[in-house]
């Protein structure tokens, strides 16, 4: 038993080391202006990554970090290096899958409904436009995993809230030349909301920081300023590259800026989602129900505030998917099939 644990730990340490080295290599190859994902010293960073492996609640942060590395890796121009780095990235992702660390191992499929579905959709996209997929999801529906799966299969960048936050912070740090990005990452991870891991992790600022933020954000509230920054960044990115973006009202932002995109809403029946959250967060049914409702409410309120629209209303999206009908992998395939029917495939 002790030997088994030691073996497992050894594997995790090796894997964490590979992730650290991959990040280092990517950074050295491109010298990205976004900086490195893991900027601490090697041993401490590996310890932190192992902690993320151990805690399912933090595993999505690790996935986000990996996605950030892959996003940067895709911009490597040297084909040979690009291939080597992407191969290493794929292997790391596969190894993580084998270790059963990710939340996508907790299924949501309802096999009966799954058997009834067929796929019909007409072609809609024009040529020469960047493929941007905006995914909104209800809590516990597996939307994050589906979004990640779609981006991974299409080999396009994946952005979620954590990545956006980090990107913005780093842009800020570059502007100011003051903030240490690695410290922020550690602090962000350490401030994981304990009560409800699904809720956005609001950062608390001291009075001095608040005044400084007021100055930085031109008198706007931090939330509004971040939204405006995200909107700007999103529009800039959308003109340059293909990507999958999770939440952030991206569908409406892009619509308002006349940028073509596909908007998808992923949800599942409440009890199915509650069941999944119970397993993911190791909580009882009552707590899971509360968490699901809280997160959904927060999403709806955020969406309503910045878009004036009702979150989750099928009419607002190109495609609404009941992930319980297909499961996570099935939903990924479903979306990919829809795209394929419309002539959009891995480039």
């Amino acid at each position, binding site marked *: 038993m002790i030997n088994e644990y030691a073996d497992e730990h050894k594997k995790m340490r090796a894997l964490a080391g590979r992730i650290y080295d991959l990040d280092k290599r990517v950074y050295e190859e491109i010298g990205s202006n976004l900086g490195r994902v893991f900027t601490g010293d090697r041993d401490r960073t590996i310890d932190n990554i192992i902690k993320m492996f151990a805690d399912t609640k933090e595993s999505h942060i690790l996935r986000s970090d990996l996605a950030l590395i892959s996003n940067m890796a895709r911009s490597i121009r040297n084909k040979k290096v690009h291939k080597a780095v992407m191969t290493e990235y794929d292997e790391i992702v596969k190894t993580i899958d084998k270790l059963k660390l990710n939340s996508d191992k907790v299924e949501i499929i309802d096999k009966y409904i799954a058997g009834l579905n067929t796929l019909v959709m007409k072609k809609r996209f024009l040529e020469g436009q960047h493929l941007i997929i905006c995914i909104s999801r209800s809590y516990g529906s597996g939307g994050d995993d589906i979004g990640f799966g779609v981006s991974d299969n299409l080999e396009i960048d994946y952005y979620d809230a954590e990545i956006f936050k980090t990107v913005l912070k780093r842009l800020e740090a570059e502007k100011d030349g003051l903030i240490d990005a690695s410290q922020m990452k550690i602090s962000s991870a350490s401030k994981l909301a304990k009560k409800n891991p699904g809720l956005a992790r609001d950062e608390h600022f001291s009075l001095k920081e608040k005044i400084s933020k007021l100055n930085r954000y031109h008198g706007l509230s931090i939330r509004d300023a971040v939204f*405006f920054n995200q909107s*700007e960044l999103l529009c800039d990115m959308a003109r340059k590259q293909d990507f999958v973006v999770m939440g952030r009202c991206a569908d409406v932002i892009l619509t308002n800026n006349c940028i073509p995109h596909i908007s998808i809403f992923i949800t599942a029946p409440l009890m199915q989602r509650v069941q999944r959250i119970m397993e993911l967060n190791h909580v009882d049914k009552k707590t899971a129900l509360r968490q699901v409702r809280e997160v959904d409410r927060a999403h709806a309120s955020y969406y309503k505030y910045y878009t004036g629209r009702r979150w989750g209303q099928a009419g607002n999206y190109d495609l609404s998917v009941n992930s319980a009908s297909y499961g996570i992998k099935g939903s990924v395939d479903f979306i990919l099939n829809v795209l394929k029917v419309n002539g959009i495939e891995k480039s």
Partner: protein
Amino acid sequence: MVPIWLSIPFVGLLLSIALFPLINSKFWDHNQKYVVCFWFVMVSCMLFYVFGLKSAGRVVLDSIVNDYLTFIVMLFGLYCVAGNISFEGDLAGSPRVNVFLLAVGTILSSCIGTTGSSMLMVRPIIKMNSWRKRKNHIMIFFIFLVSNIGGCLTPIGDPPLLMGFMRGVPFFWSLGLWKMLLLNMVVLLTIFRFIDKRAYRKDIAEGRRPDISKAGTEIKFVGLHNLIFLIMIVVAVILSGTLPNMKEFQDASGKVLGVTLPFDVVLSYPSIIEILIILLAAFLSFKTTDKEVRRSNHFTWGAIKEVAVLFIGIFVTMQPTLMLLNEFGPKLGLTEPFQMFWVTGCLSSFLDNTPTYLVFLTTAGSLGFTHGIVTSLGVLPKTMLIAISAGAVFMGANTYIGNAPNFMVKAISDENGIRMPSFFGYMKWSLCILIPVFLLDTLVFFVI
């Protein structure tokens, strides 16, 4: 006895201002000077018909020289000086920033007058909110608070209070209106924040966003030396109120000395001094400020021209109505503060609030009170004086023509891409928002 039908030109002019922009705005834009001229000639003829040439000439010339001239020169001076102060900054117009600016502007009104504060604050507020689509409510609340209500704390704030000071009301007495001002500010700013937040969210939902790409907020005022000229104008206004009481400016019978014009109209020396100081301030402001500042402020003569044209008509056609007020005001039987508050206020909404204030100050002074503030017009209980002062100052916000800066703010806003409501459209706002607030004032300060 002044026939009531003499007020027809005044009503006609008000209806023209209210209806023409709605019926045919193009016609109004091109022909408003002729419309004003029509009502001007009409009232002159009617006055001539009723009172004869000498009296009619006196009424018309007196209103032009002693009321309109000082009014428009002051407005012109403040327009020029404020137009030479440019705000360069990237503070984004959001509900919290707007509430802060309106609060600052409101307090500033008591320090440099409602017109001075309005002219100084209007462009920065327009600039900060330029990224937004829904913003006319900001300017409406600006008129409510900065252009009117904020002027209640000192005699510098609003001309009626300066008239009161000239008649013996202590200079700092009006500071006692702070509770009323505070209540109105809190209520109005709360309503404003609610409305502005809704509008702000709609703007964001449409994809509008301010340019906050630069790190850090830069706020820079160019042409700040013009504050000296602004102070010059404020001093000139104060002098126009204080000099007439000095013996050096009075003859043996106590009449204020001045230049005698046709129809025995006298342009007093204090008024001439005021006009000269203001024109000098405006001249120096133009000479010492770079053209670029005015360019960045989108400074044009359009707004002041529009106000100058409309208000000469308003000042002249208003005279018969003021005569009626002088005749019937004291006979209205007003004895309670809340009556004074509403009657002074309602009349100040349409007439010049300075003569309206004086009519009711005189009326209250003649009621024979023995306790209260001692003025040259008699003793007035504190609540009575508060009611008259607040009515005259606050309710000027009820219409575009209620107070000098109202129309100015409207004109500048219209020139800078903000579609302001029509005359009646604005009154809808004041009826729905201001009147309930004034009812609350009545309950809190004059009834309970």
